[in-house]
C-alpha cells in the first residue's frame, strides 16, 4: 500500500511558512533601516508595535471565521460599535474601566453571535449575512450615537494609551500576541478548536462524526465579534477617544488588514486550516511594510496599492504552492 506522496504534516508546513514570514520581516527590517530615515528609531518601533497590535487582533478576528470556511465583513462595524458601547458606559454611566471593557467584549461577542445565528439558521453564506449586518450595526451605531465621539473618558483609560516599554515597545502588541497565544491554544489544544477546524475542513464529515457544526460556526462568529471588540477598544485606548469613524465608513477600512494577515499567514479560505503564529507574523509584516512605505519617499498615496498587491501576491503564491504540492487545496 503506497502511502501517497510525501507526508505533509501540518506542523512542518506551519513552521516553514512562519520561517518564511520571519525572514521577510527581517529582510524588510534591514532594507527599511537602510533606506527609510528613522525606521528603526525607538519612536517608530513603538508606533509600529502599537499598530501591529491592532492588526494582529483584526487578523485573528477574521482568521477564526475563515477557519470554518466563512468570513466576517462586519468586523469593523462590530469593533467600532463595541468600543462606542464601552465609551458610553464609561462616559455616561461612569462604569469602571475594566467592567466597561469586559462589557464591550461581551457586546461584540453578542453581535457576532447574531451573525453566526443567522448564518446557521437561514443557511445563507456568511458573506451576505455579514454584509447586511455590517450595514445594520454601523447604521444603528451612528443613529444611536448621533455620530458623536466619546471624549470624556476616565484618566485610567487614557493612561493605558501612554504605556511604553523600553522606549520602543507598545504593550498593545504584547496583549495581542497573548490573545493570539490563547487562540492558538484553543485551536490546537482544546476540543473546541479541533471541532472548529474539523467543521471548516469538511462540515459533512464533522457533522457525521458528532460535531455540532452549527454551534461551532456560531462560536467562531461570536469569537470574531469579541476580537473585533478588543480591536475597537485597543484603538480607542490609542486614540484616547471612541470615534465612530475610526474604522472608516461602515468599518470598511479594517477589511484589508483583517484579510491580509490570515491570507498571508496561509489560512485556507475554504476552511479547515488556520495558523495563529503565521497570522501574527503576517500582521507584523504588513504593519512593517506600511510603516516603511510611509517613511520612504514612495509616499502615502501608494500604500493602499501596495497592500492590495501584497494580498494578490499572497494568494497567487499559495495557489502556486498548493499546485506544486498537488494537494488541490482551494484558496
Amino acid at each position, binding site marked *: 500500500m503506497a502511502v501517497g506522496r510525501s507526508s505533509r504534516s501540518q506542523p512542518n508546513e506551519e513552521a516553514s511558512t512562519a520561517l518564511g514570514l520571519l525572514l521577510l520581516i527581517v529582510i524588510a527590517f534591514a532594507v527599511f533601516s537602510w533606506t527609510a530615515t528613522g525606521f528603526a528609531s525607538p519612536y517608530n518601533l513603538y508606533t509600529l508595535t502599537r499598530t501591529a497590535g491592532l492588526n494582529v487582533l483584526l487578523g485573528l478576528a477574521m482568521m477564526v471565521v475563515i477557519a470554518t470556511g466563512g468570513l466576517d465583513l462586519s468586523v469593523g462595524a462590530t469593533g467600532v460599535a463595541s468600543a462606542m458601547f464601552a465609551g458610553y458606559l464609561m462616559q455616561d454611566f461612569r462604569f469602571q474601566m475594566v467592567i466597561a471593557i469586559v462589557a464591550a467584549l461581551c457586546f461584540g461577542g453578542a453581535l457576532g453571535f447574531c451573525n453566526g445565528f443567522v448564518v446557521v439558521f437561514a443557511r*445563507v453564506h456568511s458573506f451576505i449575512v455579514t454584509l447586511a449586518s455590517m*450595514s445594520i450595526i454601523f447604521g444603528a451605531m451612528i443613529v444611536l450615537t448621533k455620530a458623536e465621539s466619546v471624549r470624556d473618558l476616565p484618566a485610567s483609560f487614557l493612561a493605558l494609551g501612554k504605556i511604553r516599554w523600553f522606549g520602543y515597545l507598545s504593550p498593545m502588541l504584547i496583549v495581542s500576541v497573548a490573545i493570539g497565544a490563547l487562540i492558538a491554544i484553543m485551536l490546537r489544544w482544546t476540543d473546541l478548536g479541533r471541532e472548529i477546524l474539523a467543521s471548516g475542513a469538511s462540515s459533512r464529515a464533522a457533522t457525521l462524526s458528532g460535531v455540532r457544526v452549527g454551534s461551532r460556526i456560531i462560536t467562531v462568529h461570536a469569537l470574531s465579534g469579541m476580537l473585533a471588540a478588543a480591536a475597537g477598544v485597543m484603538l480607542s485606548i490609542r486614540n484616547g477617544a471612541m470615534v465612530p469613524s475610526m474604522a472608516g465608513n461602515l468599518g470598511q477600512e479594517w477589511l484589508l488588514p483583517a484579510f491580509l494577515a490570515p491570507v498571508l499567514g496561509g489560512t485556507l479560505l475554504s476552511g479547515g486550516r488556520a495558523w495563529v503564529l503565521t497570522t501574527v507574523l503576517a500582521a507584523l509584516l504588513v504593519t512593517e511594510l506600511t510603516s516603511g512605505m510611509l517613511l520612504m519617499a514612495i509616499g502615502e498615496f501608494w500604500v493602499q496599492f501596495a497592500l492590495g498587491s501584497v*494580498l494578490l501576491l499572497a494568494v*497567487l503564491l499559495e495557489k502556486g504552492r498548493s499546485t506544486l504540492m498537488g494537494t488541490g487545496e482551494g*484558496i
Partner: protein
Amino acid sequence: MAKSILRQEWLGLAVIAVLGFVVMATLRPSFLTPFNLFVLMSTFALATLIALGQMVTLAVGQLNLSLGSVGGLVAVSFAGLMDVWHWSAAPSLMAGLALGALAGALNGILIAQFELSAFIVTLATLAMFKGLNLALTKAQPFYHIDRIVSAFGNASIGGPIPAVLIPTVMATAVVAFIFYRLPIGRQILAVGGNSSASELSGISNKRAVITAHVMSGALAGLAGMVAVARLQLGQPTIGEDWLISSFAAPVIGGVALTGGHVSIVGTLLAVVIVALITQGLVLFAVDPFYVQLVLGGLILVAVGLNSLRSLLPIGYSSL
C-alpha cells in the same frame, strides 16, 4: 409553477414600488414636482448602473467587491483626461469604458485563469484600484471636465427626464440583450447555474467568468462617468459607498446569489424602492443614517425569503 412564482416575485416588488410612490406623492405633494422627479430619476440612473454591475458577477456565481473602486478610478481618469490632457468627451468616454473593462478583465483573468477566490481577488484589486486613484489624483478632484459632460449631467430630455438616464437605458438594454439573446450571456448564466454541466456541454467556463467580470468593470466605469457628469467634477471619492447598495438591489430584486439567474426587472424595481426609501427619509426628515439600517435589513429579509423559497420543493433541482 416556477414561472408563476417568478412572476409573483417581482410583482410584489412592483406593488411595493407603486405603493411607495403613491404614499410619497400623497403625503408630500412636492414629491411630484418635475425637479424632484428629475432628481429621483438621476439617482435611479446611477444606482441602476451600479446594481447591474454587481448583478452580472452574481449571474456567474461570483461577486465583485472592487466595483466602487473601479468606478472611482474610471471617474477620475475620465475627468483627468479632459482636465489635464484636454481630451474631448467622446474619446474620454471610450477610454473610460475601456479602462473599466480592462480592470474587470484583470479581475476575471486572475479568478478564472489562476482559479482564485473572487472575493479575495476583488478585495485585493479594490485596494489596488483605489490606491491608483489616490496616487493619480493625490486625492484632489479634477474640475475642468468637458462642458458637454457637465451640460449632459444637468440636462433633461423632455420634462423631468434627465439625460443621464440615456446611458442607463442603453446599458440596461445591452445587458438584457446579452443575457436573454446572446450566446455569451446564456453561457454566463449556464456557468452560474451549473458549472459542471456547462463545462460538459462545451462552454468555456473561464471565458464566461472573464466576460462577466469585463461587463461588471465596464458598467462600473460607466457608473463612475455618470457620477462625474452629475457631480460636475472628477471626485476621487466616487464609488466609496457603492458596496452595500450594489448588492442590495440585485439581492432584493431576486437575483440568485449562487448564480445562474438574473432578474433585470426585479433589480430595477429594487433600485426604485431603495431610491424611494432614501428620498422618503429625507422628505420626512428622518435621520439619514437610517438608510444604512434599512438597506442592511432589506438584504437580510431578501435572503431570508430566498432561502425560505428554496425550501419549497419544485422539481428535481431541489433534490
